[in-house]
């Protein structure tokens, strides 16, 4: 109990970001690698199998990037016009892409020449995806139709004509082989069944639908369009579960993370927002330089690739595990130091040994050491040292407060000349307008002026300049306060009148 209680500084309240698990997880993505593409990057997709290359659809080509080297390993350029929606088969061996020229082309990932060309659409094809059975694929086109193709014969198996506007997005249910969900600019999301050739569910999103997603269970549909994402329950015939609206421009793309516990959405407002799928609350936000058109997350969330409208492709890799770095850091410690640090750590006393606790010496900051010896003026000097007063002004204020409490502030402020006075005045100038410090610092100012009053005429030029500066700061602060009070008054007026109405 006779321990010295060190001076307690009130930490400055900041609207600091809470370091949640999600924050740390997504913050560990490194600085983005930016690649310039030939056109707006409309689609990005990862190869589902090793080596997890990603296909980037931009302008009239589909490029295959290596995740490791961030360089193009292969280019598919046999398109007559702009290519759209390049997508891998689940075994990662085949790639399909739509085209402005209405044809859908199928490539071997190893090869260069299209293996199959599916002709039948009358308008550009924006969406192409493989079906679950690997033998079929579907395409959605601006001619308002969705077609299912047989790969081996190049024949149309189904043609769905429900949509009334361009079909711009679609996905396959992983739970059932026969379900296709598409979204169109006619504001609807439609679920088609390839067996009955029927439109089983129609959902009205309310805006042109830019992206649809299905949970792996196949029962919940996510649709994005306009500023909102809507969640629908397919098992209840398309009942709206929730609406999430966190972007302020059109949402263009959505994707899940590797285990479908987080949903990522990209928007023209240049943000990627990450949601928890249990409650659809935003857990993290990533900013980009351009309007986002497409986005993909690699298996294991190792890499986040974002395509933007200004022809930029951003690749962010996750920082490698910290353990290795720690090891390296430990190596930096010299062996001798390690030895001394570890000495006796693993010593186990015998049964009959009397253990005498090592008396840990209390570590005190410099100003506390002076306070303990009642050397108040020196304590103030120690608290005004540059690195304390600039990095943590709250400590200096706490020391001043302690001096006021001990009723020794007058004595420790008086007799300051030259540099000591300059340091104190500079500190006051810097911090007096801080709201939380103001009560203490105003008091200190008063006392300082009292003690300097007699010698104020023959102080050095530097000191008198600082006094002038302090005066100016106080003056502008009081003007500001007047303005603020005015503002508060007018706000009160508005608020009270709105309450009455």
């Amino acid at each position: 109990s006779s321990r010295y209680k060190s001076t307690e500084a009130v930490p400055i309240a900041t609207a600091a970001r809470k370091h949640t698990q999600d924050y740390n997880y997504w913050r560990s993505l490194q600085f983005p690698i930016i690649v310039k593409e030939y056109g707006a990057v409309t689609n990005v997709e990862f190869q589902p199998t090793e080596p997890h290359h990603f296909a980037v659809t931009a302008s009239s080509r589909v490029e295959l990037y290596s995740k490791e080297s961030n360089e193009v390993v292969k280019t598919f350029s046999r398109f007559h016009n702009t290519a759209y929606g390049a997508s891998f088969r689940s075994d990662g061996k085949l790639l399909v892409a739509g085209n402005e020229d209405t044809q859908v082309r199928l490539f071997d990932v190893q090869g260069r020449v299209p293996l199959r060309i599916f002709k039948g659409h009358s308008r550009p094809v924006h969406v192409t995806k493989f079906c679950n059975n690997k033998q079929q694929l579907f395409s959605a086109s601006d001619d308002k139709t969705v077609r299912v193709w047989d790969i081996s014969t190049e024949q149309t198996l189904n043609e769905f004509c429900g949509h009334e506007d361009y079909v711009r997005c679609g996905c396959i249910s992983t739970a059932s082989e026969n379900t296709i969900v598409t979204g169109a600019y006619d504001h609807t999301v439609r679920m088609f069944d390839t067996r009955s050739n029927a439109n089983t569910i129609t959902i009205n999103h309310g805006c042109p639908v830019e992206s649809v997603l299905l949970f792996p269970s196949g029962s919940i549909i996510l649709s994005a369009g306009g500023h909102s994402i809507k969640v629908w329950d397919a098992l209840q015939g398309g009942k709206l579960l929730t609406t999430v609206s966190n972007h302020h421009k059109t949402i263009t793309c959505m994707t899940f993370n590797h285990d479908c516990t987080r949903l990522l959405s990209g928007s023209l407002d240049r943000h990627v927002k990450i949601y928890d799928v249990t409650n659809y609350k935003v857990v993290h936000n990533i900013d980009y330089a351009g309007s986002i058109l497409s986005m993909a997350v690699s298996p294991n969330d190792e890499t986040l690739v974002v395509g933007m409208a200004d022809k930029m492709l951003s690749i962010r890799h996750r920082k490698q595990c910290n353990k290795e770095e720690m090891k390296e850091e430990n190596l930096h410690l010299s062996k001798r130091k390690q030895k001394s640090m570890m000495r006796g750590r693993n010593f186990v006393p015998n049964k009959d040994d009397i253990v005498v606790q090592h008396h840990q010496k209390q570590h005190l900051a410099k100003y506390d050491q002076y306070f303990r010896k009642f050397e108040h003026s020196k304590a103030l000097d120690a608290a005004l040292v540059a690195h304390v007063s600039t990095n943590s002004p709250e400590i200096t204020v706490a020391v001043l407060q302690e001096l006021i409490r001990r009723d020794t502030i007058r004595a420790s402020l008086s007799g300051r000349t030259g540099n000591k006075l300059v340091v104190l005045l500079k500190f006051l100038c810097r911090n007096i307008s801080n709201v939380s410090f103001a009560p203490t610092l105003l008091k200190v100012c008063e006392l300082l002026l009292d003690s300097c009053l007699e010698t104020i005429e023959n102080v050095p030029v530097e000191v008198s300049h600082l006094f002038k500066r302090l005066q100016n700061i106080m003056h502008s602060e009081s003007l500001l306060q007047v303005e603020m009070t005015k503002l508060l008054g007018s706000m009160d007026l508005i608020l009270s009148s709105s309450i009455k109405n």
Partner: protein
Amino acid sequence: MKKKKQCDVESDVSLYVTETGGSSIVRFKSLFTLDSKYLLCPCGNVVKVYSTNTGECCQKLVGHTDTVTMVAHHPCNKLQAITSSTDGTIKLWDYEDGVALSSLGFNTPLYGIYTLPQYPSTAFVVQRTDKRNELCRFKLEFSQPKVDDVEVVANSMDKLTDKTIAFSKGYFVVAQPKSFLVFCKPDKVKWKNRVRHDLNPKEPAIRCIACHPKLEQCVTGHENGELRFWYNLSDSENATFNVQHWHSLPALSLSYTSSGSSVISGGHEGVMVQWTSDGKQFLPRLGSAIQQLTTSNDNQLYATSHNDNSICIVTSYMTVRTTIEGFTATGQSLPCGLNYDPKTQSCVTNGKAGHLLFYFPDNDEQLYNLDIVSRNYISPVDLEKSLPHTKITRVGFTVTANNEHLMATAEYDKENMTDQKLKMWKFDESYKEWCLVTVISSPHDNRNITSLTFHPTNALCVTTAEDGYAKTWTLDDNEDVHIQCWGWCCESTTSYRGYASSDSSFSQDGSVLALAFGHTVSLIDPLLLDDLSLLVSARTNIKQIEFGQDSNCHLLVVATENSLQSWSVITSSMIWLIDTCGFNFLVKDPFSDNLAFIDTRHT
């Protein structure tokens, strides 16, 4: 709710004081037993026997009818002690068994008893006659009930206390502010041979004196803090002294160690100083001013008695072995009042400066002092002007539905108008101690917090203050998925026409929160924060409000300066009104549906 007017109380139920506890254990000098196992402390009408190892109270010597003033060893029997009391008797005790063996009557109040092992049949008492203290010698014989032949050794002395009388082998000294007398025993009959040493009138007055256990040396403590070591005492002409000065404030207490090799001194600084021939050693930050110093017979232990009613047992290595605490809150105002802690079922009030005291009133036992403010005790530079300490102004307790014990404290430094803090504590079951969860600085813009109330079941706390706002505080339910930081934050602020908010009260089930603003009471739903209704209740400002319990839980009792009213919150109408004379406070019994109202008539 039972309407209890003052007259009813006087006629039907008579309230009487059952026990008075919490006497000072530091007012009079304590005594180590000869084996150093126990410390005997006069405490009110009893002597408490504390173990010097654990600080536990082992025995109470009950028998005196008035204040016990001093304890002395029996000159022959090691296991017996003699006490003097203001009831005019000295008693012989077996302190291990706690039995009074015999008693000797004097006609006057006694303020001290001194025995000498060399002269077993002689003892000295300090008795008070005509507002003067006299030092008297008498024959120590417990065979008779009364003492007849009392020989006055020193009289007409002012301030004859245990600090200004010191006994040694074969001589004793009595100090006056400007002089001291040395009494020697040349022939075996009379103690009349005395030597007087005078101080220069300009020299600082003597405050305390101690003499060497074997040699003819003594040390005096002076009001400017200096110590004078006197030699050659029996020679009035050639007595010499040397001056040592460390204390900046008056030296309050002095003692030689039993071997005589060193002197310990204490004063207002709260620092125990040990003076040896080599120099001095310090034991700083003992908590508050040292009133009394006692040394043990085996040279191993010292006891320092402090102003805050605690005694530190210090080893000769200058480490605190244990602390004995009496009821700390003696003689100071209690801004946070008396509170009930459901965790320890103790009474909680202000303790040491910046501490909360947990106290069992049933057996006059103190649980602990909890440091809330966490500031060092600084002795004042000037005794006239004491340093303002940050005081704990409000405290509240609750047990939440999931059995967490929570406490909130409000502290404020009134003098400097700073340091207003609201601290939220939680009882940690694994460490068995209160741990600080959140510190909210300046919750009410440095205006006085008038009340602090917890919701009966939820982690919800309401503070009202003179700035006109009532604020509700809740444990932060983080918006994020991963709750990492966990703390209290402000949920809402309520005000009504800028009136100062004086009190708040939750209904028993916690569904209604009543807030007093000026002369009105506002009822709100504490969870949904909806305004429910407004009771305009009085012409004068409301002092306190309190909800009823159980069958009266719909009633709200409102106390103003001159009336006591009961309102039904269901019908928003007044049930009854009593005119009172002055308001002091209103207390709810948590276990019955009674309320106590204390007016200013008798206080």
